């Protein structure tokens, strides 16, 4: 079985996962259906997303139906069908961060980037909500391209985003 749909743009050079990638990832986990979530994480790390087109092949490898795999992918907040922008901001809006002004911080961030929570700005910054990063004694907190930042202010958050944007631009050049 092969990929049915091409990936959205921005996935990097390997737009279309070769069947061998999925086969390799499944084999790494012994083709066990119980390891489906690990396999999906690995795939998303490789491609930036779990594209719809990959589900059929994963299902075939693990002896599941495509509907079962789709059900799992859609259940978990981590998995995305399209890659995020070059800078992905996951900002905490759980209670401890709210107690330190996270809501207003998020609103101001979205306004500065000109994008609604959950969206990607024209400049390629994706802003999403998470619920607790385990940094609740140093709220507010966020993760920018996987790196954690706490005791956030508008300036610190902008600096973290700018640093990742510069890094992404450097990598693309």
């Amino acid at each position: 079985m092969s990929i049915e749909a091409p990936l959205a743009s921005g996935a990097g050079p390997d737009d279309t996962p070769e069947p061998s990638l999925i086969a390799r990832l499944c084999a790494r986990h012994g083709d066990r259906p119980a390891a489906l979530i690990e396999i999906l994480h690995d795939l998303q790390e490789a491609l930036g997303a779990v594209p719809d087109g990959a589900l059929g092949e994963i299902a075939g490898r693990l002896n599941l139906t495509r509907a079962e795999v789709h059900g799992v992918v859609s259940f978990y907040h981590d998995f995305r069908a399209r890659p995020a922008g070059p800078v992905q901001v996951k900002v905490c809006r759980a209670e401890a961060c709210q107690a330190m002004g996270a809501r207003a911080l998020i609103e101001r961030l979205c306004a500065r980037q000109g994008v609604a929570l959950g969206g990607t700005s024209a400049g390629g910054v994706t802003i999403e909500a998470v619920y607790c990063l385990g940094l609740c004694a140093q709220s507010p907190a966020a993760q920018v391209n996987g790196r954690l930042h706490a005791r956030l202010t508008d300036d610190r958050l902008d600096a973290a985003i700018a640093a990742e944007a510069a890094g992404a631009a450097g990598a693309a050049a």
Partner: protein
Amino acid sequence: MTVTVYVPRDAAAKAVGADAVAAAIAAEAAVRGLDVRLVRNGSRGLLWLEPLVEVATPHGRVAYGPVDAADVADLFAAGFLAGGEHPLGLGPTDEIAYLKAQQRLTFARIGLADPLDLQAYEDQGGLAGLRQALAMAPEAVVEQVTQSGLRGRGGAGFPAGIKWKTVLDQPAGPDSPKYVCCNADEGDSGTFADRLLMEGDPFCILEGMIIAGLATGAAEGLVYLRSEYPDAIATMTEAVAILERAGWLGADIAGSGRGFRIEIRRGAGAYICGEESSMLESLEGRRGTVRAKPPIPAIAGLFGRPTLVNNVLTLASVPWILGHGADAYRDFGMGRSRGTQAFQLAGNIRRGGLVEMAFGVTLRELVEDFGGGTASGRPFRSAQLGGPLGAYVDAPMLDLPMDYEALADAGAMLGHGGVVVFDDTVDMAEMARFAFEFCEIESCGKCTPCRVGATRGRETVEKVLRGEDVARNLVLIEDLAELMRDGSLCAMGGLTPMPVLSAIRLFPEDFDRAPAVAAE
């Protein structure tokens, strides 16, 4: 002479610049031609002081914090390598009041050494519990856990010994395995104790799991670790590999002829997967929908097999209990809450961090004496105890002893030990709305009271916020809450009413929106 300097590698330290501090120390030492050995230790849990840098001096460890990379040259100039005075100086680490006043049993080792240094772990008492367990019959190990009075630290407070005994009593064989599952999903806002321990003393948790395997007859362990904790995933994965190489994990533990192996498995951003049956579904590779009980996991859990599900801290308490004896553990605490609890001070608090104390410490001691009041300096208004499904409390409740029963009697719960503080700017009606919204986002969708109730609840609180028919809508919320509490399949829907109703009961003025709206 080589001087050892400690800069934590914990996520809480790295999130406020610890890597840059470590790099700056290495660079400055090189420039000055000084011989510095940098150790990346775990965090001491004094989180408002992170990055907390320590120097090993002939008179013990001396602390400085919070250190910024820009402070490093100045610290060298002040002679911090010899414990020199500096505005960031905190004196001997062990004398810091916040730390000195604590009763650290489970967290006795965090921050002392490189968390992946197995020799240091042993030197500081590690593996003593496991050695003890290897010399005992499984029944005797379970008896120790029972005698200690240890209760589950994941939230429900179920006696650990009873659960262990149930799993032990199930038949096992080569084709009918049993499992130990460590619940490291730690999704509650305001909690980070599991994370601190996974990053700061991973061997302790794994040692607890191995003991649990020996005691219950399970040969396989899984850690379900939330994906929001990449540093903990890396540290725990490495710790497993180190124990395998050292022969403490594998087919034959330390030549005992008994085997145990551990697999680290990632979650995928679903709060509900901390609920044990949903976690088991997820470990089987499925959607994390909750299972109806009975059967309980101890009888039919992972792949339908007997499974011991315990929280990180429950399992990590066991090595101490085996090493020091059940009675020594029992001596801490009050009533039916024995031992110590890892309290986590979070939110709007001046000195946030980890406070391990015997049960019975009052909320006031935690929030005021340890925590130093609010971070904003404004008056304390409320605290949410025990995560997003826990109750809000008000200032008159600050003298409550922190104990499972005392809190339950007061209409609150201890949960995983999180204390999230809010100052007087908090809008409690908004927090009630958020409680429903969180349930709406995170409900697994299997049962109607939780799935639909959360949405209806949010909408109804929004009407109250707009001042629409307030009295009638508040009655509706009470009815809905009762339905969710009594009709939900698990505590997600069952406990969401707790924050909502406690907010309404203790802070009715925040829900009295009609006049404000009418005046607009």
